[in-house]
């Protein structure tokens, strides 16, 4: 299923995350005002058969770097992994696209507070707490899927 906007690549894909990160440079002042961050953040998308795909994001100062799709999670050494079924992720993305940003029920925090449909996990609660410490930065990043983000090199 595609949760793309027509301008964004399909979710989940390295290109989708690359497009979001590309938007960070265009809106640098907004991100700088949110403050710097330091977190290795992994998105885990689980399909119906239980197969996982992982995508890595590195929040480094005022920069956000997309590490693309990861073959394995462990070498990326994430501080926190946000995991959930493919359907929950795509519903979130569709909601962001529809509203120009997540509504209250579809923020990263709202979707994970109960441990379902998304859940934030980390072997270290201090690592997991980084998900809370940088919530505004992460949500701003994902909400940028609701804006017309041109695909690098596209159209």
């Amino acid at each position: 299923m595609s949760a793309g906007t027509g301008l964004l690549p399909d979710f989940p894909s390295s290109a989708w995350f690359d497009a979001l990160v590309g938007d960070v440079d265009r809106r640098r002042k907004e991100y700088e005002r949110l403050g710097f961050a330091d977190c290795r953040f992994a998105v885990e998308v689980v399909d119906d058969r239980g197969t996982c795909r992982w995508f890595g994001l590195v929040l480094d100062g005022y920069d956000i770097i997309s590490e693309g799709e990861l073959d394995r999670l462990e070498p990326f050494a994430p501080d926190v992994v946000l995991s959930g079924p493919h359907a929950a992720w795509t519903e979130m993305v569709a909601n962001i696209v529809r509203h120009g940003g997540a509504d209250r029920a579809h923020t990263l925090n709202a979707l994970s507070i109960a441990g379902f449909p998304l859940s934030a996990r980390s072997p270290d609660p201090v690592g997991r707490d980084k998900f809370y410490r940088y919530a505004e930065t992460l949500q701003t990043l994902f909400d940028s899927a609701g804006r017309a983000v041109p695909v690098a090199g596209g159209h």
Partner: protein
Amino acid sequence: MEDGGANLDERDAGRDRPLDLGWLRESRAEWGVKATPSRIGLTLKDIAVGSYGDIPDHPPRRTMAPRGSDIPDQVPDMGYTINDKAEVWSDNVMELYEEAVSRQWSATRDIPWGELAPLDPDLEHAMCQLATVLSEVEMVAADFPAKWLWRINHDFVEAKMFLCTQAMDEARHTEVFRKRALANGGGMGRATAIVEQFLKVILDAQSYDEGSALMHLLGEGLVLSLFRAGETIAPSEVEKRIFRLCMQDEARHVSYGTMHLRYRLQRDPSLAEDFHSYLDRGEELIGVLLSTPEVAEPATILAAGSLEAASELGSAATDVLRVQSIEEYLQRCDRAGLDRRGRIRLPDDMIAGTSAAPPPTPAVAADVVGART
């Protein structure tokens, strides 16, 4: 000749000296040691170079003189009572200070107050009551560090600086919840004795250890969970933003508290029982506090979305939040080096469904098995 503590003879002698900084030539300062800025600027970690990065476990003096400076013998004793690094330090305190400074926000500018619309009166009452409680509890997390700051040895200046940012954060939280209570016609709700009792235990703590465990780990940990939930129970975009921004700040404080306690216990494991005792008392109070109507009802009504739905759902409306918040608290205790599962003092109905819940008694277990077969 002395005048107000100053040596006037020395002042007179100074008049005859050439202005060539000659007195600085014998300085033990590390001339040539140069800090290099990282990509985000010149951070505290960047300047922790050479001997300047050495933070003594037991500073030899109790003075405000900057660590690494030449300190004459005549400096007065400032009477600091916290002179062991482990009493206040955490391995992440420098990064947390930098992060706090970088991620400050304004309750006046950064909340979309203009978008606040009239709410159903029940929801407005609930929101205002919750804002009243939060406005009440948040300020203790400024009062507590402020009470202890002047007692902390200046060689631990990075920890002191972090606690200053916490005081600023909490002032802003008090401000933003007070503003929310007054911004939409609801006004202030009701304060409670049990909330005040818990705050008093923190404020009256006999040691920084005791107060920090009660506040950073227990109190702020649970408030952090409430802020997390706040985004989902927020009646509008205004509260959603308030809760999310407060959540970020609170998570920093909790992160300090967790890692500080870890640092403390790693260096003196014999203190574990003391910390257990502090948390025993704190949990007993928190158990009552979280059940009091002034705290429990507004959260339940907001979570359910209406008074009617809240009446139907009862505590089920906040069950998920309860389990998550207690589980996260227990995990932070684990990380710090304290296993609270065997002795948690929260009431049984509050820990039901968590990893601290007591195993079912044989009779109950038999009932469960019987019901399944």
